[in-house]
């Protein structure tokens, strides 16, 4: 699970609503692997990023060199884009958990795939 994906995920436990975002990340196995750098693509993702969530996740993983916020003219700033590229796309959480900040419900991450299935009771209104 890349951090760009984590940035997209929200807890859907009943009654939690927008307080289910962001999910608290805990990782027991992380892999960092090079991904082809595509500055255009990264630049387009920047406006979609929820920064607080990203910073929190990056912090949990003890990542360094994470920009705190988008800078002016980021589209042309290669260094900024490369740093974002690394954080968003090159860090893969293979094993760990995601926790709903409101309900405490834990969602496991296994082989890089987060399991967000809720039981029948949890989905009942």
């Amino acid at each position, binding site marked *: *699970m*890349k951090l*760009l*994906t984590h940035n*997209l*995920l*929200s*807890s*859907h436990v009943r009654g939690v609503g*927008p307080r289910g*975002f962001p999910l608290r990340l805990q990782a027991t196995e992380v892999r960092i*692997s*090079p*991904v*082809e750098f*595509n500055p*255009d*693509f990264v630049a*387009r*993702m920047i406006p*979609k990023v929820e920064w607080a969530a990203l910073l929190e996740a990056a912090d949990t993983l003890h990542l360094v060199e994470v920009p705190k916020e988008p800078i002016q003219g980021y589209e042309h700033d290669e260094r900024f884009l490369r740093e974002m590229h690394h954080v968003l*796309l090159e860090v893969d959480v293979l094993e760990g958990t995601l926790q709903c900040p409101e309900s405490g419900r834990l969602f496991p991450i296994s*082989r*890089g*795939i*987060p*399991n*967000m*299935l*809720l039981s029948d009771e949890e*989905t009942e209104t």
Partner: protein
Amino acid sequence: MAAVPGGRRSGSAAGAHFFCTAGRGLEPFLMREVRSRLAATQVEYISGKVFFTTCSDLNMLKKLKSAERLFLLIKKQLPLNVSSVSKGKIFNEMQKLTNDDPESWLNAISIWKNLLELDAKKIKLSQKNANSLKRKVGENDIIAKKLKTEQMQEIQENKECQLEKQIEEETLEQGNFTTKRDKSQEELQNDVAEAVDTHNQNDLTFRVSCRCSGAIAKTFTAQEVGRVIGIALMKQFGWKADLRNPNLEIFIHLSDIYSVVGIPVFRVPLASRAYIKTAGLRSTIAWAMASLAEIKAGAVVLDPMCGLGTILLEAAKEWPDVYYVGADVSDSQLLGACDNLKAAGLKDKIELLKVSVIELPLPSESVDIIISDIPFGKKFKLGKDIKHIIQEMERSSHPFPGHFCGLAYPPAVLGTGALAVNRTELLPTWGWHSSVGRQIMNKSTG
């Protein structure tokens, strides 16, 4: 150009004449594709085949995504008249296919040889590059990229730089799956070796594959027709028949609409993708669905019931600057999808989640595009569940102009239908209703 009685000959200034078979309902997609990818002219759709003319080489032809198979056209004529009494008379008619205009046959074959030879030269060149890169390919993309840029610089001046770039991209991105690519390269090289081997027309070995449909099929078997044509060809050109491993394959389709003769350009159908390890949904349909969704660079695309990930694979190959997410409830499907992603070298482009489509763990309006092959009928109860699915999809995607593109199986219809609907006009009731931009396509059964 001499007047030719009936039929069309291959090869002119505008390019060579081809035709493709296409699954039912995919013909409009194919027509659009040949026009945009190949700048094709004289594009015609007749009864399951799309005919067109183009100057494009094999590399571009290989990229066609909505076609089943590609053929070089030898002849396209009015259908044989089978209302005659004598079978012998009809056999004579069939022989005319080969005897009336031998020029058109030889013409087509020389075009076929040229196409393959040109492609072989490029393959040799790419193999040279591939060999020097082989050690580096694998996890270490960075070094490979460096070499690539160096080589790119070297060949900037080269006339054929366009083609080489393509080949290099292909060789590099498929580091994990050299076996499959080598195999198809081998096959192509075999094709070329065979084509080149036959300096002398007399050395050419061939095989006839025949299909009969409509009224003709009631009177003749495909084997009979194949045999008649085969013998006529042997007499006309002195070729030898080889049913196992011929140089040249001749494909004939006799129907109520036309008589078509062609040479299959590739041994493997275009629909069979080298980059898909295990297909779920038919690749041509998956691509067509993705093309309906109007995916733009920088989009977030979700397939909430991705199964083995076929739609996402097709989409990611065609529109790479996009963030793809696939979700499914089934472990085995996700495992298969994961395998597929690895085999296609797309692990970094497509993320997977174990998620239920009726409870998407996504904030509202976080996704740009949703595409899915929706399993109606068997797995889901009609009515309520479908409504939930659609509601969830609507909630998680942007309002207008987001697109929703689903493969539906309306219970009353035998075939399946797919719909690209402007999201705001999607009605939450069971049964798909027409709206602006509706396109129906049927799932092919072959």
